[in-house]
């Protein structure tokens, strides 16, 4: 997109109208207007999502796939319609490739405990990167312990970027799985996933992307990416908590053993043997989060109704404005300066611990995340115990970044 188009899109993007769709954004915190800049932890929900869940709870709730009665059929239709919309949202080949899980974490654990545990041999290797969230480290450590495989970590550079060559050098005949973030939650780095996946595929390595920080910010096409698995969470893309999606290539999911046993995932059970259900039910044991999936379906509708080019241009403008504004503050260091980033700024302020910053900013109505962001290896790499992180969504404004900067100045004054 050229600069003129970018400016036009920013101008035509009506943030005020968008904000009116999010009831929570109009509240105040400690007597100040709320500036919600913690979207990488969890985004707020538009009225359409709240309404979809409310409508289901009030008028259609029953257990799904169980009864012939009207309510059960309505609930089933709504739940399965959400699956259809999610399949279209990430361009899966088939609805059978969309497994509803509790979130990204459960999706990755499912792949680790079903696919990896049944296929890894002693001496095999699982390749991740130094940027991963704990939920894309610990499940692999666990399955490595169970199978005798080894966890290998691709390095990052001082900007918080992953180099394809450095990662590719670590792909050996023993490498069986590449699991990496699409976007880093701690730094906002967009990883070169297309090239990483191409390198892995040419070596017969199975690939998983942690898409938790990507789906709200960019169109995701799993066929175009070429990954075998893609996991993401509803609550970071304007949907409810407690639900998410594991996409898997049907061929792989078919071959994988079930992860959890129970109702729904079976065709026939006797005390001697059980016949497992077909996809996707094979991986959805027990009554799922029905209202959550329906809310997630509404969140998909919300995102796809956005002018995504304009939304992306707006988020990008927020990133550049925040980067410029914060860089001008004496003693402030931005952690993570890769050329390709989502709208997220992680930073430290000299003489002020991030935890104190979090409290002072909250006093100004500004919500940011402070801490290690469940990515302790990233903190260790940059030799900081923690950072403060401002992460933007499509509904954030430039004024909110100004309030963040004013709060940081106040913190500087207190600790000067």
């Amino acid at each position, binding site marked *: 997109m050229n600069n003129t188009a970018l400016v036009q899109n920013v101008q035509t993007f009506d943030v005020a109208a968008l904000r009116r769709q999010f009831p929570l954004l109009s509240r105040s915190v400690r007597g100040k207007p709320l500036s919600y800049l913690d979207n990488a*932890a969890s985004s707020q929900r538009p009225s359409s999502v709240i309404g979809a869940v409310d409508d289901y709870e009030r008028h259609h709730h029953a257990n799904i796939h169980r009864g012939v009665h009207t309510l059960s059929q309505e609930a089933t239709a709504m739940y399965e319609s959400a699956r259809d919309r999610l399949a279209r949202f990430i361009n899966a080949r088939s609805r059978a490739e969309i497994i509803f899980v509790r979130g990204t974490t459960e999706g990755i654990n499912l792949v680790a405990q079903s696919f990896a545990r049944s296929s890894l041999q002693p001496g095999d290797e699982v390749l991740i990167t130094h940027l991963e*969230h704990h939920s894309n480290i610990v499940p692999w450590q666990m399955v490595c312990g169970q199978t005798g495989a080894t966890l290998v970590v691709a390095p990052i550079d001082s900007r918080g970027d992953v180099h394809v060559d450095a990662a590719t050098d670590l792909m050996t005949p023993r490498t069986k799985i590449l699991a990496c973030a699409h976007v880093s*939650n701690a730094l906002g780095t967009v990883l070169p996933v297309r090239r990483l996946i191409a390198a892995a595929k040419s070596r017969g390595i199975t690939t998983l992307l942690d898409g938790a920080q990507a789906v709200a910010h960019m169109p995701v096409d799993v066929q175009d990416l070429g990954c075998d698995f893609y996991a993401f969470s509803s609550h970071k893309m304007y949907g409810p908590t407690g639900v998410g999606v594991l996409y898997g290539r049907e061929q792989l999911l078919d071959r994988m053993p079930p992860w959890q046993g129970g109702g729904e995932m079976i065709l026939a059970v006797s005390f001697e043997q059980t016949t497992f259900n077909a996809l996707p039910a094979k991986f959805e044991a027990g009554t799922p989060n029905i209202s959550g999936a329906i809310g997630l379906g509404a969140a998909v509708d919300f995102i796809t109704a956005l002018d995504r080019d304009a939304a992306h241009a707006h988020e990008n403008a927020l990133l550049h404005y925040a980067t410029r504004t914060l860089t001008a503050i004496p003693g402030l260091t931005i952690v993570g300066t890769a050329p390709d980033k989502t709208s997220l700024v992680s930073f430290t302020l000299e003489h*002020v*611990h*991030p*935890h*104190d910053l979090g*409290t*002072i900013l909250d*006093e100004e109505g500004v919500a940011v*995340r*402070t*801490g*290690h*962001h*469940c990515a*302790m290896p990233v*903190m260790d790499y940059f030799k900081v*115990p*923690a950072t403060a992180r401002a992460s933007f969504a499509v509904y954030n404004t430039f004024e909110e970044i100004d309030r963040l900067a004013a709060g940081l100045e106040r913190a500087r004054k*207190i*600790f000067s």
Partner: protein
Amino acid sequence: MELNDLYRDVILDHNRRPRNFGGLEPADASAEGFNPMCGDRLTLRLRMADDAIGEIRFEGQGCAISTASASLMTEAVKGKTRAEALWLFERVHALLTDDAAQGEELGKLAALSGVREYPARVKCASLCWHTLVSALQSQDSGTTGAGKPAAIPTVSTE
């Protein structure tokens, strides 16, 4: 102003120039405190003189509340008997969590009373005290508590 109540001059001063900061060799007892929620780490070492805390020093990294609280604690418990230190722990704990607690008997430690308006920060102020109890207990049982994190709730979410 509530923030000024949290970040009082005493707190800011002890954060900027923490007292009794550094290592202590040899030490009769030590313990490590870790708050995984914010990454605060603290190592506490002490030397006993009979039943009293003769020398006490801490090192580590943490927020202003955590650092100042540890600094104030080392000043307050130095020369105190084990029982007196534990009594102070109870008083400080009450000060941090109970709106009715006045803290008149606490001297400089009373500067921590602003923390109770910020429930998310109570653990920052109490980390050093839990670590002290752990160190005293380890000394009690004749083993060192080094390497064993004090019993701090471990919550980390995103």
